[in-house]
């Protein structure tokens, strides 16, 4: 069975997406910065280092408990920049609208965007709007790109994890994925799970101030915590051990995951970060995260080890061990 077209799996952020990137994109666009495959590109300029990032948003439905495609699009790019240690400064906006979209709906989305921009201290400085005939796009798609400035002392990247580092997760897993999923047509779920979409730039600056040697920051969006940790383990050539007992999941999210056969480790987050920091700075970093309004439930979920490089291993509640893999295949299409 040969496949010669793009499948939803290719957009999953999991294994197929990686394959597409390595087989099709990277050979054509050879650039050392691109090849690092960070959430954002770090660029040296005469004025210092800047971070540059882009992201597209196609979430279905565009309104979900806890947010909408507008604040999601702003927060997503703010967070991509923040994960490079950058302070977000400028943003662009590309709107693709389906003919027939209610102006009022668009206005709601734009108001949320304006509020999110203000919260993150980011300026929207350029933009573009296209309208396509009814049926050729679904309501609204948004692209945002952003530029941020990286403080000279910050050296944060996915390949910097070192044995002995503590792994901190800033709060409960899976809220965004489950909040969106429960809104899907045909899924009649009664639930009060709300998306965690939130800007994390302030949390990141607090971490940098409290624990300057922080090694890695990553927001576990599509593919969840499991995929993000696997990427870090691969890029840094280290092993990561996590403890099932300490993994934070809201009971409602755990219940829905159980029912649908999903692993919360694979479900998307939009307002959480993973922070890998040397052990002697871990308590400072953790305290800084917990002081942030979006990080109150933060905790240490595991450690980096020199063993089993490239692998993430989970100690289960009953004392067993198993490997935690990246998400393969699309779990929930159009989650962000």
């Amino acid at each position, binding site marked *: 069975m040969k496949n010669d077209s793009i499948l939803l799996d290719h957009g999953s952020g999991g294994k*197929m997406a990686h394959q597409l990137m390595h087989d099709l994109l990277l050979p054509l666009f050879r650039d050392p910065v691109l090849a690092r495959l960070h959430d954002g590109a770090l660029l040296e300029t005469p004025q210092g280092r800047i971070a540059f990032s882009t992201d597209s948003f196609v979430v279905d439905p565009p309104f979900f408990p806890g947010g909408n495609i507008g604040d999601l699009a702003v927060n997503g790019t703010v967070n991509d920049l923040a994960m490079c240690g950058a302070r977000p400064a400028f943003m662009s906006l590309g709107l693709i609208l389906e003919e027939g979209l209610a102006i009022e709906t668009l206005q709601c989305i734009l108001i949320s965007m304006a509020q999110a921009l203000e919260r993150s201290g980011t300026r929207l400085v350029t933009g573009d709007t296209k309208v396509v005939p009814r049926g050729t796009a679904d309501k609204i798609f948004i692209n945002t790109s952003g530029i941020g400035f990286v403080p000279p002392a910050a050296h944060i990247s996915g390949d910097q994890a070192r044995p002995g580092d503590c792994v901190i997760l800033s709060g409960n897993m899976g809220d965004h994925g489950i909040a969106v999923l429960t809104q899907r047509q045909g899924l009649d779920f009664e639930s009060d799970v709300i998306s965690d979409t939130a800007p994390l730039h302030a949390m990141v600056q607090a971490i940098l101030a409290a624990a300057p040697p922080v090694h890695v920051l990553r927001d576990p969006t599509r593919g969840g915590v499991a995929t993000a940790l696997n990427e870090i383990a691969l890029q840094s050539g280290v092993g990561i051990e996590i403890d099932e007992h300490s993994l934070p999941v809201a009971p409602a999210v*755990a219940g829905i995951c159980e029912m649908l056969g999903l692993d919360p480790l694979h479900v998307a987050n939009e307002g959480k970060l993973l922070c890998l920091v040397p052990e002697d700075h871990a308590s400072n970093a953790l305290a800084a995260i917990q002081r942030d309004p979006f990080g109150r439930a933060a905790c240490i979920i595991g450690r980096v080890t020199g063993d089993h490089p490239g692998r993430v291993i989970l100690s289960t509640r009953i004392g*067993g061990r198993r490997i935690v893999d990246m998400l393969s295949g699309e779990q929930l299409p159009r989650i962000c």
Partner: protein
Amino acid sequence: MMVLDYACAFQDAGIAGHLVHRIAQAANNPIRIMEVCGTHTMALFRHGIRSLLPRTITMLSGPGCPVCVTEQTDIDRCIALARQKDVVVATFGDLMRVPGSTASLQMAKAAGADVRVVYSAMDAVNLARRQTGRIVAFLGIGFETTAPTVGGAILAAEQLDLPNFCVLSAHKTVPPALETLMAYPGTTIDGFLLPGHVSIISGVRAYRRWFGRCQIPSVVAGFEPIDLLQGILALVRQIQADAPALENAYGRAVTENGNTAAQEVLARVFEPVDARWRGMGTIANSGLAIRSAYARFDAARRFDLAVTPLPPTKGCICGDILTGVKTPRHCPLFGSTCTPATPVGPCMVSSEGTCAAYYSYHEQEGIRP
């Protein structure tokens, strides 16, 4: 907080350690246990139970993943249905990537077919109510566990007088397959861990005839770590004492008679037919067809879904894996040509498939505490 408390009680590390110790003490000789149910397979991996069991115990994964035991021709029929004009196919997500002879539902969808993932048969009924003018066909693949809910959906559609809802039934029942499995050449099974969910519906009595004939150690078990360990301990004891019994270690959910209301729905809407299982051939009375009284909800009657049977995919040994003759490690394609991203056989696709479980939990590396 109910969810958490409940889970904690059955995931207690102290109790688990105690059970593991007793299992290790009891299992003096090599023992081969088959967990029949795909959910058990996944739970054994997910909770790290395989890493805790003594090396004398080999866990074999059985034919309890509905997608895996579905024949390639049946997948081809699903795809043929999706390609019909004005048809919306509603399916559980697991089926999307399963390779048929030349395509998968996912590829059919990429090529323009309208295929939607739903989480229950009732979701498909509701879809049909919204999609008047098009026919919503639900792909009924599953065991005794899902068949009553599909039957319920058909009854609901009848009540609503929905002309545009139908089901393609490839449902199967577990007990007839167990018997075939025992006689399957090359299988050595010392005991069966019987499926919890299926037994909640069918009750322990559904296994009585089979057990009477086969007299093999059998224990019905639940899905939490403590349930599984208790089930395994009970099996090991029976095997070592050479005292086969049909035991119910999931008493809080499984009764002798099962869920009779669900059984009634099942019997009302479906009738037993011979069915083909991947790897095991035709098993008498192991399938469920829609009764003629509900013919108008039967996609097999409404559409011409004749497909030419093509030879099964070369090199895939799913059939031998489903019967416990081989493990994924014996498959030359495992992990190289065949991965969850590029599945060759259904066992690599389904979240309950044995090959997928071995792959995502890297069983070949033999992680131990």
